[in-house]
């Protein structure tokens, strides 16, 4: 034992004297470690050596020690003790030292460490000592980790270097200036003046840097933006030269002249041309040339996956779409995107889909032309592409293509990845709601969605469907049959089950009648129907709400079916002792109906009247019995007003006075809860209507606002904007946008369309919801854009004269 210890000490001493490990040898050793623990051991040992070496102040190997330290730092080990060594290395006169020292500074130092300021002086010296690689190192470090203080200190040096003859140093100085402006925006005043002059350079690096610098200046200051608009013609010239003759082949990629420079110029043009007619006009020709010229190149090239060329083309598209470009140019841009969609390169399809998504509202008809291609993209294997394709497809649905589109989308729904199901389902339902050609088609569509993706639909889908079916009297028989068939096949999809149960309850008589021209006649037995509902009740897959539906449906059938009600009474009786409180209550109530109020049962369980879904008030002429049936559907109450009606009821029970509505006095009577169910609040008196307001008129195109304030929500103001057209020309691409003062909240719903045909054609309506809890005076700023008589119209105006009743 003593022997081995002696050996250790002997070898240890030898190790100390031996030259330190070379970087590559250390890396070799680390990689040779078999386990994490072994690696840690090797590194810790080496770090100890490095620390000792730093302590000893060995200048010769310092750079190697730091390099090793930087390596282990990348593996995640602490390296803070090397910070001061960076400073020493930077201050050394050897280039090797500086190279590693500056690298260390960029990796280990940042503005959080006080030490970082100490390199300012070294940088200053290196910037002015004239050896280009050294100046390059200093500039690079400054632009990577320079703090605001350092930037302020060194701005004069960098400014000087902008005027140096050597392009190597100048290009770096320019980009350092970019960083400085990011850190200290006030330095813009220092670096703005040289820009215009620098634009005359021919060196690509300098040009690129200058354009980057100008872009940064313009993005940060509207004054700079205005100042640089004057260079638009020059930029156009530079780009034109690049595209047509090309400065040099040295900078080309796949036949495209310096794509990086082209893209940067296009980006700057985009910023300068935004909202500026004159600049935009100057660019129009060039953009058309680039857009069309590239098309030719792509067409003749067999290999269309040239990313560089496509990158330039894409930037062109982005610029066209963002500036005030001519209509033809916009169409060109959309068409380029459309062709991108056909490209075999997935990345190009991705950018195309993303951009088309941004354009679908403003350039709807242009994007429509590419609908078939978009729909094909639904089959993409990459989820982010199919997601975008889905959104775009949904945005392209309109009244003329709705049938075809829904077919595609429903096919997609069947096979789409699970995380897209919910959005696809709700998208289909919403689109169906907006564009359904017939009620039957609408019902079929919803049915299909519920059977395919029932678990993924939104909560209000059930309410919407029941509402829809309820309103389509001629389709009751059809609906109930289809739903019955669907239910018989599958009772697991809860929304479907709920709707089916409701329907069977409501229209059970039609189900049993047996004749419906639209479907094959089906002989349905009463017992079968009851058995199915019971199955739903008992199934462990059924949610409590679903069971509620089923129980109520059973109850309703007691008046719809011919046979005796023993079976139903039995089921109801069983559930009187159900553990679920909601079900138990219903069962008790229904049972009581059978036993004590049988004479009223038929009236109570009559068919429900159609409930106003969006209206703030319920049926005003609700008879007692009908309203009771309505209230027994408490769980599926879909709308806010109904819920608040229920709350009123609770107020009644508590004896509180509630809000402005005054319910009729209660007759005290035995029967407890059931009586209160039967006693109804009468509908609240309608508030005095607020007068409409005409806010805009131009050449026969008018915009009117009408106001509703729902009584149970005084902070809410619903404005319906109606656009009418009494002129001889159609209004197309009508878009209305609104803004409100900060104290209000605005939510806009989708308009009913974007075309108002001439001579009093169907107007466009759009609903605004404004929340005004502080009763601040409502002001609106509206922006209308539309095409009329072959001209594009844009109007921005404020509406300050809203009637006082709309906000007080």
């Amino acid at each position, binding site marked *: 034992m003593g022997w081995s210890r002696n050996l250790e000490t002997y070898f240890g001493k030898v190790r100390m004297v031996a*030259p330190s490990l070379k*970087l590559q040898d250390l*890396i070799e050793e680390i990689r040779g470690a078999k386990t994490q623990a072994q690696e840690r051991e090797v590194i810790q040992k080496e770090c100890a050596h490095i620390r000792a070496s730093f302590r000893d102040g060995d200048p*010769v190997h310092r750079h190697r020690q730091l390099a090793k330290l*930087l*390596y282990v730092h*990348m*593996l995640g080990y602490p390296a803070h003790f090397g910070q001061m060594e960076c400073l020493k290395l930077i201050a050394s006169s050897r*280039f*090797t030292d500086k*190279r*590693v020292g500056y*690298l260390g500074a960029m990796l280990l130092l940042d503005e*959080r460490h006080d030490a970082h300021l100490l390199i300012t002086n070294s940088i200053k010296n290196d910037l002015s000592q004239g050896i280009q690689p050294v100046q390059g190192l200093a500039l690079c470090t400054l*632009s*990577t*980790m320079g*703090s605001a203080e350092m930037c302020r200190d060194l701005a004069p040096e960098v400014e000087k270097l902008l005027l140096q003859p050597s392009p*190597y140093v100048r*290009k770096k100085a320019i*980009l*350092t200036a970019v960083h400085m402006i990011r850190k200290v925006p006030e330095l813009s005043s220092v670096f703005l003046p040289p820009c215009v002059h620098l634009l005359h350079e021919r060196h*690509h*690096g300098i040009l*690129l840097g200058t354009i980057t610098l100008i872009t940064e200046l313009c*993005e940060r200051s509207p004054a700079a933006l205005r100042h640089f608009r004057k260079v638009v013609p020059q930029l156009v010239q530079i780009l034109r030269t690049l595209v047509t003759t090309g400065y040099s082949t*040295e*900078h080309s*990629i796949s036949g495209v002249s310096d794509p*990086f420079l082209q893209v940067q110029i296009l*980006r700057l043009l985009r910023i300068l041309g*935004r909202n500026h007619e004159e600049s935009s006009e100057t660019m129009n020709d060039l953009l058309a040339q680039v857009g069309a010229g590239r098309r030719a190149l792509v067409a003749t090239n067999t290999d269309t996956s040239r*990313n560089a060329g496509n*990158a330039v083309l894409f*930037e062109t598209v982005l610029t066209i779409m*963002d500036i005030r470009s001519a209509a033809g140019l916009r169409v060109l841009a959309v068409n380029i995107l459309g062709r991108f969609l056909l490209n075999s390169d*997935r990345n190009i*399809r*991705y*950018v195309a889909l*993303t951009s088309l*998504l*941004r*354009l679908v*509202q403003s350039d709807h008809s242009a994007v429509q032309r590419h609908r078939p291609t978009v729909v094909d993209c639904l089959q993409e294997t*990459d989820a*982010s592409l199919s997601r975008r394709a889905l*959104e775009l497809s*949904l*945005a392209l649905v309109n009244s003329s293509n709705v049938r075809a589109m829904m077919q595609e989308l429903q096919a997609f729904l069947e096979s789409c990845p699970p995380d897209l199901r919910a959005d696809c389902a*709700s998208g289909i339902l*919403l689109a169906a709601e907006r564009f359904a050609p017939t009620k039957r088609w609408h019902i079929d569509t919803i049915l299909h969605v519920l059977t395919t993706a029932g678990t993924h639909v939104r909560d209000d889908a059930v309410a919407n469907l029941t509402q829809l079916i309820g309103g389509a009297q001629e389709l009751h028989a059809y609906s109930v049959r289809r739903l019955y068939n669907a239910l018989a096949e599958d009772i697991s999809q809860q929304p479907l089950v709920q709707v089916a149960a409701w329907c069977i309850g409501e229209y059970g008589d039609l189900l049993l009648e047996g004749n419906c021209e639209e479907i094959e006649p089906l002989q349905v037995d009463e017992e079968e129907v009851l058995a199915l509902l019971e199955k739903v009740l008992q199934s462990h897959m059924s949610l409590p709400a679903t069971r509620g539906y089923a129980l109520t449906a059973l109850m309703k059938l007691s008046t719809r079916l011919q046979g005796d009600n023993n079976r139903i009474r039995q089921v109801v009786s069983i559930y009187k002792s159900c553990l679920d409180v909601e079900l138990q209550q219903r069962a008790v109530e229904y049972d009581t109906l059978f036993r004590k109020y049988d004479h009223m049962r038929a009236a109570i369980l009559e068919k429900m009247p159609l409930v106003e879904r969006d209206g703030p008030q319920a049926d005003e002429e609700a008879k007692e019995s009908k309203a009771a049936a309505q209230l027994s559907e408490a769980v599926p109450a879909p709308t806010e007003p109904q819920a608040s009606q229920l709350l009123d009821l609770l107020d009644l029970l508590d004896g509180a006075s509630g809000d402005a509505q005054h319910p009729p006095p209660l007759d005290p009577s035995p029967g407890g809860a059931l009586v209160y169910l039967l006693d109804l609040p009468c509908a609240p008196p309608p508030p005095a209507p607020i007068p409409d307001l005409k806010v805009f008129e131009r050449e026969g195109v008018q915009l009117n606002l009408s106001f509703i304030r729902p009584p149970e929500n005084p902070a809410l103001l619903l404005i319906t904007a109606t656009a009418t057209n009494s002129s001889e020309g159609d209004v197309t691409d009508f878009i209305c*946008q609104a*803004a*409100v003062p900060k104290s209000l909240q*605005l*939510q*806009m719903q*989708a308009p009913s369309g974007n075309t108002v045909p001439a001579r009093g054609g169907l107007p466009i309506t759009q609903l605004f919801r404004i929340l005004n809890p502080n009763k601040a005076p409502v002001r609106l700023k509206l*922006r209308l854009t539309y095409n009329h008589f072959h001209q594009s119209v844009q109007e921005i105006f404020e509406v300050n004269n809203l009637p006082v009743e709309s906000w007080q």
Partner: protein
Amino acid sequence: MVGCAKREGRGKRGAWAAPAGVLGGRPRGEPLCLPSGPQRPPLPQLMRFMLLFSRQGKLRLQKWYLATSDKERKKMVRELMQVVLARKPKMCSFLEWRDLKVVYKRYASLYFCCAIEGQDNELITLELIHRYVELLDKYFGSVCELDIIFNFEKAYFILDEFLMGGDVQDTSKKSVLKAIEQADLLQEEDESPRSVLEEMGLA
């Protein structure tokens, strides 16, 4: 008409409220939608960082262009590596992570990853990554991961001649490589015979 309910009417990029989207705004995971309607101005462009890492999740290079604490860097690197390594080969090169766009490409066993904000043109970033790989390839002669492991400092030097502050310095491959060559020469001149003797402990 599409729009994300989450971003509706926030008025950050302009006061106009856009109508609610067809999809009714249920944001999930990767944001389903992007702000639509009138174009928003392009955001100031900035490359936040560039990472190189292997399929096993070993970091080979990290260049940060925005001041970030060591702890935060480690967290971001770990997270992003996980996300990128989980991507299947047939997926596109772009993804959205946190509030950034990430452009990545796999070259043999190495992933090259750039995180960018304000850049609408992902294709040109791909071109940028490819240019860097070409530079490495020219310098090392058919570069492979081992070259970058054993010469990591050179990889940094080359990157620093190509990009500065995340922006392209020079679009000529020749020019960048020449600059590296000159710097290497300058370094070699420094290494005089004297240092060899020092190595052996004889000076």
